[in-house]
């Protein structure tokens, strides 16, 4: 299949970027990133600068890949990362627009690569359970209801990719943050620090320059792990409760 690619090129965060157009011959069995590999191989053979993009596992789990494809973070397929998207989802002759994940808190490093370290700092602000190595009791000492464990697991599936913030017109990180708050807060082990955790993670989110949440729901639609906005509702409730308590 023959494709027309319009790819965003930008030297760094300070320079102005623009689209570059290329045609690529691809096979429908290729993954989207393999199609990008083909483009890069050609650029290199022409002694040109290849398109920079993040990727690593190519299995939909590391959260590195990050492209906005035809206006949608991770492209058109529901619940799928860019690396898991295959060319059979496109048609011969299609024009495909490829851009980086854009959000105020994600500066552009080069081309399609953005700096998502703000997410790490949100986790550092409280996205953990305070237990030192060696302090734990037996793993079966606290039974956890199966459904509860599964709910926590669903939230814990977040891969930290940033599609939610890139999808949100406000550039909000609510889905990411609330997923962590739910994962830990739903489990008995994480309940103890829950209130403090909610407050400090929300504060860090604001400090990083992520926008507010106005319940648009684009985050849930684009999230490759289909993390539910129920987590946002839960976090909002708990945040509200926490502010009442602390006042």
């Amino acid at each position: 299949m023959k494709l027309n690619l319009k790819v965003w090129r930008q030297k760094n965060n300070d320079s102005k970027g623009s689209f570059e157009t290329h045609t690529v011959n691809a096979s429908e069995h290729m993954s989207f990133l393999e199609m990008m590999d083909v483009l890069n191989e050609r650029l290199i053979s022409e002694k040109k600068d290849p398109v920079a993009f993040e990727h690593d596992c190519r299995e939909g789990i590391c959260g590195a890949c990050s492209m906005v494809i035809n206006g949608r973070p991770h492209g058109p397929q529901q619940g799928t990362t860019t690396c898991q998207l295959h060319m059979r989802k496109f048609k011969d002759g299609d024009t495909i627009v490829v851009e980086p994940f854009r959000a105020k808190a994600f500066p552009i490093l080069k081309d399609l690569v953005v700096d998502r370290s703000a997410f790490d700092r949100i986790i550092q602000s409280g996205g953990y359970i305070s237990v030192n190595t060696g302090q734990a009791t037996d793993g079966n000492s606290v039974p956890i209801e199966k459904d509860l464990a599964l709910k926590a697991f669903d939230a814990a599936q977040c891969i930290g990719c940033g599609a939610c913030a890139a999808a949100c017109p406000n550039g909000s990180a609510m889905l990411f943050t609330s997923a962590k708050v739910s994962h830990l807060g739903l489990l008995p082990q994480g309940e103890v620090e829950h209130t403090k955790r909610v407050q400090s993670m929300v504060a860090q989110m604001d400090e990083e320059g992520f926008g507010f949440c106005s319940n648009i729901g684009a985050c849930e639609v684009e999230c490759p792990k289909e993390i539910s906005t129920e987590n946002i509702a839960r976090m909002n409730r708990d945040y509200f409760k926490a502010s009442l308590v602390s006042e």
Partner: protein
Amino acid sequence: MELKNNVPVGELSEKWTQYRSTMNLVAPNNKRRIEIIVVGTGLAGASAAATLGELGYNVKCFSFHDSPRRAHSIAAQGGINAAKNYQNDGDSVYRLFYDTIKGGDYRSREANVHRLAEASVDIIDQCVAQGVPFAREYGGLLANRSFGGVQVSRTFYAKGQTGQQLLIGAYQALSRQIASGSVKMYNKHEMLDVVKMDGKARGIIARNLKTGSIERHAAHCVVLATGGYGNVFYLSTNAMGSNVTAAWKAVKRGALMANPCYTQIHPTCIPVSGDYQSKLTLMSESLRNDGRVWVPNKIEDAEAIREGRKNALDIPENERDYYLERRYPAFGNLVPRDVASRAAKVACDEGKGVSPTGLAVYLDFASAIERYGKGEALSKGIKNPSSSQIIELGEAVIAQKYGNLFEMYEKITGENPYKLPMKIYPAVHYTMGGLWVDYNLETNVPGLFALGEANFSDHGANRLGASALMQGLADGYFVIPYTIGQFLSGEIRTPSIDPNAKEFEEAEKNVRSLLDKLISVKGNKSVESFHRRLGKLVWEYCGMSRNAEGLEKGRKLIRELREEFYQDVFIPGSADEFNPELEKAVRVADFLELGEVMMVDALNRNESCGGHFREEYATPEGEAKRNDKDYAYVAAWSWSEDGNHKLHKEELTFENVELKTRSYK
């Protein structure tokens, strides 16, 4: 050089406990003054950095990823072993120890393996306390499943995303230490050299990948937890960035590479489909709990399938060869990985492969779906369920256990594995070889430690499923925090290491000249193209089966390829900017050297054991033939520019298990 493994004396089951209680300690006020560099934030590195930070050391932690959470460990699927015996099925620390020694085909060090089995129990407790959402039973207790090579159910899991959940646990523990200031994190920094002063490891040279600047980092000791080197094969199940560079730079500074030829070829991966392919995808071994492996009995049927005239469902039950169940009745589909992989190769070599390339066998869930469906119907009180009801109920059970794997399979292949059996083929997955370390996980370079997949220590010639996660976390949470004290207790009077010392200057120069050399070739071929060619060579001559002639030839071809690389590689851009092609080039340059040493090692080992199968050394039934008299040793290699790589041996002594021919029949 004599290799001292420093295994403490005493009864096997008492060694670790006794050693721990008599070890040298570093007092809290001294810990604050001591700096430790940890390279890597996979399970091994993140758990080590977090725990060392908790203990009060000053830790600097490095990763070439943009976040610690992206380390390759994130992709582990199936599970983690622990000798908890929660299932009351006869498991014990000794049994886990024994299974691991046997699974490794008697090529690992008894004392290390026993310690690993002991630590396994604490790992699960630690992870649960951190909030790792392991799978649970209806009663709220932890669930288990089985993995290959064992007859108990000791694998803990979180759907097919166990590595993700464990790594996030370790990442969160690490994040907590970063927040507290005890760990300073350097993301997107790639270590490109180890700095030695007076023979001890005292720092690293790292390249800031965002800016290209070269940095010196000093510390009292250096811990490498930089993962495995499976990507020397180009196509593997490893993440694209996994590489040998950190370990290889250590080898260049005098550390030894142990058993580099021991690579694990995983039996259940999605087969190769085209030349453009960049990586292979694993289908977790846990699937062999419920999937049955088969090929058609008749070559004509296999041909018809390959040509698209028939599909799996057209082959009646009595015309299928469930070859693992037939050849290994005691373990059936759950034989260890090396055995299952070779059996798949044999079936395909006989012409019974089922994909257009001829390189695939079936992994079929139909029986499991039916079995589970009937069970569900019974427990839901449905009398006389219809067959479509049974299938629906059964598929739901399978979806709960392996849903994400089935989805992944469908996304990649476009086929629905609930309806048609999966097609699978072996692929490179894990490297048992790695930096030689003693009982303290210290390499032969004092102050240089290696953890996780980067070391060679626990899996012998073949690793059992769900044991790498266990080893990474054992090393990081429960071993290194103690054993590092053996070295550091002698360093409490050592002042901060000076990054302006001449050794740092020399190492920095070394790195700069390597980068310049690569950039200035300005040839005509991409880095990727060399990597791909290297991978083909290593797979062809040092893959699932090897022979002396092929290894000699492979070695020669790799040397030629290396020469060509330095004459004709093209790297766009410069060294002082963000430059992913340059990053790849450095890694491929090291793979080109490692690949040669793998062949040398495989050639030296005139026996078959575990993942190392030499065609000359096989039984008439095609099983591996070990030679304990001459090869019960660890082969640790030093690198030499002139090609005379030197072998150093650590004899393996077995005092607690009897060396037997491995049988899974």
